[in-house]
């Protein structure tokens, strides 16, 4: 039993067995990070580059912790802009990675498909740590692991993702992964923040939050940001909070309040109120802990994978 995939670029088209294997391998690593000495020698001699073309503290720190706890050699490469702004092509970047003889690349980029492009040109194993509005597979895996930890299974669960679906890589990866694992997925948000053909993703669509909440066993609340320019898809954060904010008052009305996830960082009192974020239904901090373990599992499974395994 090994992963059928060589890179983790997204969860779209990743077979159920692979997701299952990652989720099932995670507890071994969760045990490691709960020890006094949170480090194992497993990836000794493996070089991993964290290639971040877009600033991100949380995801990078989570990956770096995972890498160091597996004893990998870690190099952080942060570039606020694309190579193209320096007159370089992404191909030049790829050639440089190849020349540096790294084993794995964890990549964050603001443009969808950028890691797909690089992974086609390099021999290193690639993990997508977020490509624009496309995918953020390890976030969705840690979300799924955290849900499973609480509910025991994903199959048959009603999960609703709430917020700016159109621009969310977290939403897309969760939709692909959860559907593969047999969950029933819905999205909820203002129609101007839903992708044009959102039904084609095989999700239920709610534009009324209370209806969405009654449907849901689990809600995943996305961070909302207001673009300060003409063409913003909603008028104000205040109006968003009134219409789509998750508050204790709203959840109180439900016979079975859902489990609450949030990929962070929180916009307190905007998309989620503090009483919910810090309340009993929230598993936001478990997500962060599980994130390191899930990433260790992914790094292990990809980093020690043999071609003969596939």
């Amino acid at each position, binding site marked *: 039993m090994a992963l059928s995939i060589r890179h983790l670029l997204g969860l779209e088209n990743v077979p159920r067995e692979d997701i299952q294997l990652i989720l099932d*391998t995670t507890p071994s690593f969760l045990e490691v990070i709960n020890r006094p000495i949170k480090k194992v020698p*497993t990836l000794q001699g493996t070089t991993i580059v964290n290639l971040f073309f877009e600033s991100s503290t949380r995801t990078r720190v989570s990956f770096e912790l995972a890498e160091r706890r597996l004893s990998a050699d870690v190099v952080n490469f942060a570039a606020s802009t694309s190579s193209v702004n320096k007159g370089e092509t992404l191909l030049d970047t790829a050639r440089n990675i190849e020349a540096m003889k790294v084993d794995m690349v964890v990549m964050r980029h603001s443009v969808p498909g950028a890691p797909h492009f690089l992974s086609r040109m390099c021999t290193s194993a690639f993990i997508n740590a977020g490509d624009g509005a496309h995918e953020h597979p390890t976030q969705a895996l840690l979300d799924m692991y955290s849900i499973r930890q609480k509910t025991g299974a994903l199959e048959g669960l009603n999960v609703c993702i709430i917020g700016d679906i159109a621009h969310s890589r977290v939403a897309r990866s969760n939709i692909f992964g959860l559907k593969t694992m047999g969950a029933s997925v819905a999205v909820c948000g203002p129609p101007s923040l839903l992708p044009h053909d959102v039904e084609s993703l095989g999700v239920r669509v709610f534009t009324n939050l209370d209806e969405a909440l009654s449907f849901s066993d689990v809600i995943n609340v996305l961070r909302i940001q207001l673009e300060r320019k003409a063409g913003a898809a909603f008028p104000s954060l205040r109006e968003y909070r009134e219409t789509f904010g998750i508050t204790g008052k709203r959840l109180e009305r439900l016979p079975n309040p859902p489990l609450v996830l949030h990929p962070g960082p929180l916009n307190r009192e905007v998309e989620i109120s503090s009483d919910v974020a810090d309340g009993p239904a929230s598993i936001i901090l478990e997500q962060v802990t599980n994130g390191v373990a899930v990433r260790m599992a992914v790094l292990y499974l990809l980093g*020690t994978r043999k071609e003969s395994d596939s």
Partner: protein
Amino acid sequence: MKIIETIADELGFVRTISRLAHEILERNKTLENVVLIGIRTRGEYIARRLAAYLEEVESVTVPLGVLDVTMYRDDVRGHLKQPLPHKTEIPFDISGKTVILVDDVLYTGRTARAALDALTDLGRPACVQLAILVDRGHRQVPIRADFTGKNVTTLEHEEIHVLVKEIDERDAILLVETPEPQQPGKD
């Protein structure tokens, strides 16, 4: 897979376990500070048998833990097939204890070496002893067992298969011939 010889049948198996238990008792005058830690997969079951036997004859409950050494193996990346890590479950602090590591077969010694590394990350035992059901020789690292159920002389292309009721339906120790050369480091 061709069975060359049955080293121990069900009865022989039980006798081997009790021999191991008595060796342990002989060395450790008291079991007060002793803990048993089985190395996944079959070491866990051998450790459980030992614990049960010690409980029966000494009326002492020896704490039992399970150690997964996959993450400490020196061949994780060179291995022909990717080994999958499982959970280590040691529900007690090993610091200051006499830890008896238990495994089914001692061969190259690499698994025992990995287990010692793993133990180091979990605490600082007073001492570590190694209990092995079958020692088949061919060591690659300077490791020896403190307690050995059986010594079996083997050739490189042979393997010792330890079967335990819990997962293999019966208890037995078999000497078998491997169709292919052994995987490097397989213990």
